[in-house]
């Protein structure tokens, strides 16, 4: 029976290609023909994949699709990792979408929340990245994928430059299921620096009239790092990195972790930790890592995406970063997420809200953002079998019984007790548990990282070792103990906190040898973007919004 089904799908693809006719010359489409071509290759009800994560976007193709109307195309089932562009929102407003399955809605989080309220957001589920990519192979295989590449050659081979990101994860399941792959490129050239996607898997190519949208998402200006963030970074370095001898890790993109990166060559060096921690990374090429790399701390970095301005630097440091035969930077989101899941000992990141059980979320009632990749890394990989010092140590603390894993990944939340404007980070219940949000998501609250997976919460008040807690009540008490002067924190019992501290489950900054009087921005290896450029010996080219010289 399988044979018959494939045959139908294959026949359907050739019918679609036949309809294109003179709208394309071979694989090549002129920009003005794109809307009409989309009408011919997409059918009502199709599963359509729009490429775009939080960095690169197939924005020309998305805009062309959004220029169509319900009469042209309807009942589309969108699959996409990120809802990022105004054009994406237009598709919903125009009523062209039957269902959407996605991961993340960063800049459009407010618009998505509005669509949910207006009941115009027919969501299947919010996924993590690899979860969605996996479903592209199983039950969400695109009929048409609209993707973005840096360059194409005359045959239709594609070069993805630094931002490979998720393109292979979309193209492969689509191309190998008789789907149609349509790429927008910045430029068509005679010879590519290297081939990232073979022409064989590409059906159409358009040279877009403007370069694809590419955001500098992971650039953190050291000038904006506060004393409090430095303080917390010092606490984390001593209480987690040093204690567990964390060798392989993933960092989030916040200022807290940027502070840690910038403390390695200074404070980390003073502590004698060079060579003992932070050697292997699954992380994007963060500019704030330049001083640590230049100081010889870092052996290897693999990335899910590139970062604007880091092209020359990463090419010059090919002993640290992945590079192609042409010498330029290479990334891969799906493989990077896989590495972040299995191959690192620690995930450390931040959250907007944490509840008393340690569940965290970035969703608020007026802003639905979703997950991205954090849950793939901020979880316990129960399929892991290889040991490491950090993994075994954390596992031992968790009191392995019969039937338990011998090790644990360190899953660390690094948060200030209050967000900007005195909004408490710690809450009794997450906004994500709001009934209307839960209902729209078919009963699943959008929890980013579950409390059961978290091993540590670090705040300016201290460290709560959730992994070492023996009961839910104990976990809640440990969280209250580091929740400071938030309403959650004010409910702590002094006696219980003292008991937890005596057992090492709660550690105050002074317990790990950090005092606020040591804090100084002068500890940062670079105190501004210009400092990073100087560390890079002029190889880092920061985007203009960061340049004041």
């Amino acid at each position: 029976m399988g044979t018959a089904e494939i045959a139908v799908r294959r026949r359907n693809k050739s019918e679609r290609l036949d309809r294109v006719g003179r709208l394309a010359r071979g694989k090549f489409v002129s920009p003005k023909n794109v809307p009409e071509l989309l009408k011919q290759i997409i059918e009502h009800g199709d599963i359509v994949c729009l490429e775009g994560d939080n960095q690169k976007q197939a924005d020309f193709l998305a805009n062309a699709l959004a220029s169509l109307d319900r009469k042209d195309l309807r009942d589309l089932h969108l699959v996409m990792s990120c809802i990022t562009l105004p054009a994406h929102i237009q598709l919903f407003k125009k009523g062209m979408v039957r269902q959407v399955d996605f991961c993340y809605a960063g800049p459009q989080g407010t618009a998505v929340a509005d669509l949910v309220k207006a009941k115009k957001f027919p969501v299947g589920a919010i996924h993590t990245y690899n979860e969605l990519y996996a479903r592209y192979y199983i039950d969400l295989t695109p009929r048409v994928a609209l993707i973005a590449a840096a360059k194409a050659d005359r045959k239709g081979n594609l070069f993805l430059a630094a931002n490979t990101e998720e393109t292979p994860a979309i193209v492969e399941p689509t191309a190998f299921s008789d789907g149609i792959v349509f790429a927008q490129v910045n430029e068509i050239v005679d010879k590519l620096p290297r081939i990232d996607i073979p022409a064989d898997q590409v059906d159409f190519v358009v040279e877009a009239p403007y370069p694809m949208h590419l955001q500098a998402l992971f650039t953190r200006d050291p000038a904006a790092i506060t004393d409090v963030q430095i303080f917390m970074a010092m606490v984390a370095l001593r209480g987690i990195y040093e204690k567990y001898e964390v060798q392989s890790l993933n960092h989030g993109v916040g200022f807290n972790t940027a502070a840690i990166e910038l403390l390695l060559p200074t404070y980390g060096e003073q502590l004698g930790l060079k060579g003992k921690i932070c050697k292997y990374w699954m992380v994007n090429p963060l500019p704030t890592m330049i001083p640590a790399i230049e100081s010889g701390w870092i052996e290897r970095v693999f990335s899910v995406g590139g970062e604007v301005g880091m092209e020359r630097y990463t090419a010059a440091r090919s002993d640290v970063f992945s590079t192609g035969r042409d010498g330029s930077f290479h990334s891969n989101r799906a493989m990077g997420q896989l590495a972040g899941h299995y191959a690192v000992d620690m995930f450390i990141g931040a959250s907007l809200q944490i509840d008393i059980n340690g569940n965290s979320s970035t969703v608020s009632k007026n802003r639905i953002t979703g997950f991205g990749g954090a849950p793939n890394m901020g979880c316990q990989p129960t399929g892991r079998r290889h040991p490491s010092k950090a993994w075994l140590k954390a596992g031992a603390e968790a009191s392995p019984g019969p039937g338990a894993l011998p090790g644990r990944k360190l899953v660390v939340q690094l948060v200030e007790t209050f967000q900007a404007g005195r909004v408490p980070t710690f809450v009794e219940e997450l906004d994500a548990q709001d009934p209307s949000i839960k209902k729209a998501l078919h009963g699943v609250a959008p929890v980013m990282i579950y409390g059961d997976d978290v091993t540590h919460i670090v705040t300016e008040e201290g460290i709560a070792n959730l992994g070492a807690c023996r009961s839910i009540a104990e976990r809640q008490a440990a969280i209250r103990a580091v929740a400071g002067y938030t309403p959650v924190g004010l409910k702590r019992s002094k006696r219980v906190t003292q008991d937890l501290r005596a057992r090492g489950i709660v550690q105050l900054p002074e317990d790990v040898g950090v005092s606020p009087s040591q804090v100084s921005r002068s500890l940062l290896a670079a105190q501004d973007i210009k400092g990073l450029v100087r560390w890079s010996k002029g190889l880092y080219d920061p985007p203009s919004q960061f340049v004041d010289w």
Partner: protein
Amino acid sequence: MSQLHLFHEQTARQRIAAVTDAGSFAELLPPPERLTSPYLAQLGIPVSFDDGVVIGHARIDGKKVYIAAQVGQFVGGAVGEIHGAKLTGLFKAAARDRVPCVVIIESGGVRLHEGSAGEIAIAETMRAIFECRARKVPTIAVIASDIGAYGGMGILSTCCDFRVMTEHGRLGISGPIVIEKWMGKKAYDSSNRALVWKTSGGKTKYLLGDADALVHDAAGAVREAIGKLLTKSSPVTLKNAKARQKELEKRLKRFGKTADPDDVWKGLGVRDIATASLASGPEFAALAKAGRK
């Protein structure tokens, strides 16, 4: 790499402590006096014990100075009635005692919340500065932070004998956002930080001769520059005024039609714009000097 406290990140009190001899600073009208702004209180805006300016006397290399530092974080370092009166009094004291006066400026100009009172205070302080200059008492403005010296404080800084700047410091009258509103984004994109600094930053001001020293963003460097200027003055004479008139006419004639600050840099001896952009203050000064030869 050396670990230094950046001068532009320090608070007013830290800056004063860092550029003067250890323990020598004595504050005038210190915080316990609680001279806070009645205007801000009436408007329900937080007040500050020193009203945004710390004044007093201290020693630099053993030599007595009067010194003031504005608090840029507090209402943009803007000058209100009390703030301005403290500055006026300080310069008058300097003139009376024939003691040099240093003002570390970090201000957007007049504090709008206090209306014309701040405007008059700035005019009064200018008169007091010239009282110093009439007695050959050196007056030195330090402009070393992103907030810089703008509006009336920008003009006031040019009344002093000397200006010490860092590459972070900005000197002007109208800020970039105001100009963008007036001329349009095409003429001045205020989000183009590189252009903003090339328009009003320390490097350009030093090249033009409006800043007398361009130093590292560190208290030690600022202190050294102040120290060198404490024994000098820039007399108000007919000869000097005529020379300055000529110089400013020449500048306007030469660059008045130039929109691109890079052309000004090139015209004044900077050969490699990219290298000069990335250079620190003193490196830049050296490059410009070499280029002019």
